[in-house]
């Protein structure tokens, strides 16, 4: 009777039945340019960033880190602007991930200085005692293999010539091996002497992480988005001289700031906060602004993470330890 006694017909019928949903939800979107739009402001990866991305894939970083910020209030507060489809035009494969054992990384580029990443990849628990991330110090002990880089960018159609690929690699090597490189101290500490003059796998991975989300941030810089705790109009510190607030600020500093500025605030990855040198101004309002909105070169914005009150308490603590 019918298809139930005709195996080949049955197979053909099954194929037709499974192909309906496949066509509508998979094949049709693949043919629509609107599914994966391309925008001018999103640039392809450089040769070194691409090599870093391949290391990210090889080590399976996507098993613990996502790369999509969803349009939810607390998610935007934690990670930054939500992800846009055009950002992924050069992502083959995509790396959105499915599990956040570690935080989302779609907006990590430029959030911290390079030195932060070197130290963190080398020994995550030296910065965050409770972290369960594997240590990747061994990446700094392996030279970066660039023998397939040109072939890779050709396969991906990034449009770089062979000379350009060479130049990108050379330029990045000059940057990280220069005596002026801001992360030189950490990099030299974790890289064996014979590799300090070359690019390591760690260098490429840091380059890739620093690229994530930067095109979007560059676009957004013109029109500032504004968080919940704007400094404008609040020139006075509500906790000025308040002993209790300073004590609380000390605790908050230990928890959130000491990782980069040191337990005693005398500076490590971030600058010394005890001396009288202030790159962006040393009034309460200036310090508030630096914490709240962040500063270029690796100071993240803390406005939505900490809120006004906790930031002012930290300001009070920082003022209390400064050299008069």
């Amino acid at each position, binding site marked *: 009777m019918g298809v139930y*006694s005709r*195996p*080949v017909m*049955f*197979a053909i019928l*099954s194929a037709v*039945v*499974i192909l309906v*949903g*496949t066509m509508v*939800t*998979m094949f049709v*979107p*693949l043919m629509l340019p*609107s*599914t994966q739009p391309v925008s001018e402001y999103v640039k392809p990866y450089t040769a070194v960033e691409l090599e870093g991305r*391949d290391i990210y*894939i*090889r*080590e*399976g970083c996507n*098993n*613990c880190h*996502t790369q*999509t910020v*969803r349009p*939810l209030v*607390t*998610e935007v*507060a*934690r990670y930054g602007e939500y*992800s*846009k*489809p055009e*950002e992924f*035009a*050069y992502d*083959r*494969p*995509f790396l*959105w991930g*499915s*599990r956040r*054992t570690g935080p989302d990384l779609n907006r990590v580029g430029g959030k911290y200085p390079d030195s932060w990443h070197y130290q963190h990849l080398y020994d995550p*628990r030296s910065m965050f005692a*409770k*972290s*369960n991330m*594997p*240590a990747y110090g*061994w990446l700094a002990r392996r030279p970066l293999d660039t023998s*397939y880089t040109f*072939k*890779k960018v050709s396969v*991906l159609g990034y449009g770089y010539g062979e000379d350009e690929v060479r130049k990108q690699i050379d330029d990045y090597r000059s940057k990280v091996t220069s005596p002026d490189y801001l992360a030189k101290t950490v990099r030299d500490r974790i890289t064996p002497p014979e590799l300090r003059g070359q690019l390591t796998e760690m260098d490429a991975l840091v380059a890739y992480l620093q690229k994530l989300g930067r095109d979007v941030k560059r676009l957004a810089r013109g029109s500032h988005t504004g968080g919940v*705790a704007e400094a404008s109009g609040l020139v006075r510190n509500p906790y000025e001289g308040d002993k209790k607030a300073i004590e609380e600020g000390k605790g908050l500093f230990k928890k959130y700031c000491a990782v980069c500025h040191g337990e005693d605030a005398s500076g490590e990855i971030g600058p010394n906060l005890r001396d009288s040198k202030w790159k962006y101004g040393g009034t309460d309002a200036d310090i508030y602004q630096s914490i709240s909105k962040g500063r270029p070169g690796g100071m993240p914005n803390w*406005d*939505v*993470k900490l*809120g006004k009150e906790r930031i002012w308490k930290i300001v009070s603590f920082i003022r209390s330890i400064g050299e008069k």
Partner: protein
Amino acid sequence: MEERGYEYNVVKGFAYSALFWLIIGLLVGLWIAAEMFLPQLNLTPWLAFGRLRVVHTNGLAFGFTLAAIFSCTYYILQRLTRTPLALPKLARFHLWLFNAAIALAALSLFAGMNTSKEYAELEWPLDLVVVVMWVIFAINVFATLIKRRERQMYISLWYIIAMTVTVAVLYIVNNLEVPVNLFKSYSAYAGANDANVQWWYGHNAVGFVFTVPILAMFYYFLPKSTNLPIYSHRLSIIAFWSLIFGYLWTGAHHLMLTPLPEWIQTVAIAFSIFLIAPSWGSVINGYYTMRGNWDQMRTNYLVKFFIFGITFYGLQTIQGPTQGLRTLTAFFHYTDWVVGHVHMGTMGWVTMIISASFYYMIPRIMKRELYSIKMANLHFWLILVGQLLYTVTLWIAGIQQGAMWKATNPDGSLTYSFLEVVAAMYPYWKIRFLGGVVYFVGIVVFIYNLLMTVRSPLAEQPKPEPSKA
């Protein structure tokens, strides 16, 4: 009979392969479960979580489950068609090719050669091997079906055909990639398209590896081991066609609230809700089969596995669509809740049905009595308790995790840093590991029981009847 008999060597071979890869996959699973709270265990690059998790998922989904599927398919196929396997030599080659592919897959994943697309991580040369292997399998399935001596195909055969066709389509389309060298390739699709193709594949890999062939086993081995006809053949006709029709629309429920076009997400979740109906069609068919004979839950040790297995399948197919709803996915996605969800399906439904199928099949083809029914009962309780401890712990963990990520202070700032949430998870991850250990012990009992069965003397009665009340 004069002609060549049923081919059971490859059935046995695939069963042994399944048990071997099960042990390997579970050991890796225990190791990465411990890494969650003991990061010092990331001793070498190839023992780091990022690489090992992939070995765990591939080892169990493909090494264990697929081998068990091949084993049971070759058995069911011959019995239901009343025809010996059409090409037994090809099937033996299939067995060797399969094990070589899985071994190479494990080694290459340990070495970090992976495409990053979940459950499709193998690099392109191994993809080619997998495709060849699947074609070999399909040839045998259809050649045997064409030669069959039983006119009408019973339910299990429909599911086997659907799996054979669909897995081929899924695997080939999602693994289209451009090679750079022997060990590295890039996906043919970019960004949102790659994500959409991947989860169309990823979800249907669950559908056509963890559901469809397992239902084929369920529909065959439950009636066989109870001697009760399945409740309704026509209900299963409707459930079958709606299941395989609906499944292919649902992949994007893994991509809710991502930059994928919203309409694809909405369609996916609508069909996910629809899928509850055919899934429960099978659950009801299972329950009603036992109508009036529920005493077999006590007297026939196999029934527990089938009934608990189909119950977990029923729970799984309600939990899945529910957690995909936009408001709930916003809360649950990316948390440990989802890990708990997956493991109810694999440790509850898939393994329970495969266990019972092996308990039915292996003594029969070996012409021996099962070594110990007591031990089979112990195995049942250990994997049940281990699985529940594992999944319930991770559901609670996921709720806390989601709540902490979302918690805000009155001024709108976030209450917890990411790290505080990680730190709060450690107790749960330890209990989860314990659940995994209990489960693993249950599996060791299972394998020991089967090994002792195989090594025991030939049964005195040539044909042991299914144990009945």
